[in-house]
């Protein structure tokens, strides 16, 4: 029995088969997961079910007299809402730009800090540090940089670049890139950490035999490193895409969706409906659309990456 356990694959069903120590062991696992099931049920599953229900009602905490059954009114309002459609466009742009840039920089960074050099441990700690910083703090830091009175703009203007008294957050195009840069600062470490963890599991023998065959650095990267990282890259881009989709803190505080709603993502729109407008009914309809988009995206992405794998020899 012990041998069976030790040799069992780590995935899922590995618990000892012949274990009949005590009768009550049968109930032990249920007792162990009970607290988790309870809190998740009450504070996650049940509320999610409620979203469906709310989305069919006029529901505003500040206007209780107007509450009541709405049928599909909220959904009709949503499909006619230009801000909803604009937010979808901006959300895709935001997610794609962030994930692609973070992946590229994170990959390069992971490869660099995987080499051995003097001061590596310190360099890793410093490079990873923005990972632990919150969205609001990221805004605080970058606002000091973007602000016309405290920021770099003044020093750039000294060199004749740009003009005094402007902030990149004022115009919609520069506000987008300003937000992208701030989020990049915080987001690259995530990829660097995950990819570095995977890089460390590549056996050095592979590189050595490739060297014997006369493969150069670039060749080794394309034929050994990248194929090995394939799964880690798929997983981390998926997680990050979902994460950036859901990321509200930074945009809420840095641009607030502005200027002129130009940086409004769908979840940010939901958050503003919930926090500022207290329009719970319409907010729930928007939430439903976000659920659907996330589910479709995740399934499609995983399906596509599986198809890609089968094509490979």
């Amino acid at each position: 029995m012990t041998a069976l356990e030790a040799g069992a694959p780590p995935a899922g069903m590995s618990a000892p088969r012949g274990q009949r120590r005590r009768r009550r062991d049968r109930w032990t696992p249920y007792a162990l997961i009970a607290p988790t099931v309870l809190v998740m049920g009450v504070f996650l599953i049940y509320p999610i079910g409620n979203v469906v229900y709310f989305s069919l009602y006029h529901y505003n905490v500040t206007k209780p007299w107007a509450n009541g059954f709405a049928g599909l009114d909220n959904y009709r309002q949503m499909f006619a809402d230009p801000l909803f459609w604009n937010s979808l466009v901006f959300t895709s742009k935001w997610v794609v730009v962030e994930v692609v840039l973070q992946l590229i920089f994170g990959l390069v960074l992971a490869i660099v800090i995987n080499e051995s050099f003097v001061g590596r441990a310190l360099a890793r700690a410093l490079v990873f540090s923005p990972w632990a910083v919150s969205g609001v703090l990221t805004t605080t830091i970058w606002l000091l940089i973007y602000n016309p009175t405290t920021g770099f703009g003044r020093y750039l203007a000294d060199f004749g670049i740009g003009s005094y008294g402007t902030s990149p957050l004022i115009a919609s195009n520069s506000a987008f890139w300003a937000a992208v840069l701030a989020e990049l600062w915080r987001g690259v470490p995530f990829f660097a950490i995950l990819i570095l963890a995977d890089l460390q599991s590549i056996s050095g023998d592979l590189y050595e035999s490739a060297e014997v065959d006369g493969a150069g650095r670039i060749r080794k990267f394309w034929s050994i490193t990248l194929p090995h990282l394939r799964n880690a890259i798929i997983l981390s881009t998926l997680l990050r895409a979902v994460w950036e989709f859901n990321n509200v803190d930074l945009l809420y505080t840095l641009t607030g969706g502005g200027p002129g709603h130009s940086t409004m993502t769908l979840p940010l729109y939901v958050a503003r409906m919930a926090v500022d407008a207290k329009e719970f009914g319409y907010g729930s309809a928007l939430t439903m659309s976000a659920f659907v988009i996330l589910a479709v995206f995740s399934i499609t992405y995983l399906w596509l990456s599986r198809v890609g794998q089968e094509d490979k020899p």
Partner: protein
Amino acid sequence: MNDATSVTTPGTQRPVAAKSGSSSGFPRKGRHGLARARRTRRWAIYLPLGLYLLFTLVPFYWMLLFAFRKTGSTSLVPWPGTLEHFATVWNGAGFAVFFKNSVIIAVLTLVLTTLFALLGGYAIARFTFRGKAAFLVMMLCTQFVPGAMMLIPLFDVFRATGLINSLWSIVVADTVFHLPLSLILMAGFIRNIPIELEEASWIDGYGRLRGFMAIGLPLLKPGIVAISSFAFIASWNNFLFALMFLNSQDQFTVPVGLSYMLGEYSVDFGALAAGGVVAVVPVVLVFAFVQKFLVQGLAAGAVKG
């Protein structure tokens, strides 16, 4: 992006920064001749690394500069410094209270998350039972539920249970959000401990619980440290829940306090930067403590593609 940071870096950097505008950041191809290859190799490491470190550290420095510099000064070093901004945020802006609230929430979240993750993780790692697969699928699915999407329905639940405007609402919401990943990671850590060790203790007459406490728990220490630190950091950083569920100023957390400073009509930048330093210190301390586990823990197979 690197261009921007190297151009705007205040004076004192090494020439690397100025020279490197066009660096692609990739390791250069190997050349013939060992010494030369080694030299290019070193450049291929230090050049992109140095640039990236500038990009990472200059923003931190900028915040420290404003936090410690006297009001009205334009020097690029905060020397001679001042603590007046810290006095302003700590006493005037109420960060003493916000800080206390944030600590209470983060510590309670840490304790609950770690405890539930230990219990559930043990069940997943050491038992087969009906519904296990369904339980795991449920855990994974909840990872895709966005926090912003839970604002409205959770507000309703908290109002019904009387938790609204109580620190407990944030503790509960944070725990629910970090528990699935923590539990799955914990199951991975527990599975890595050979069950034979615990079984040996059963033969000595120990029960399951006593055996686990005596044998498993000490071996699990690194995993517990990592998981509880993640829970602490995530809870410390949470903004949206606190913004939505807490509405009196004596309940605010540090991120909410910061966001209100950001929204003020005329921002006191010195105080804002000092508030940022207050927000970052606990996270940096915890992070310095766990950053090694970050890579090791993941490499150990906890999150394998």
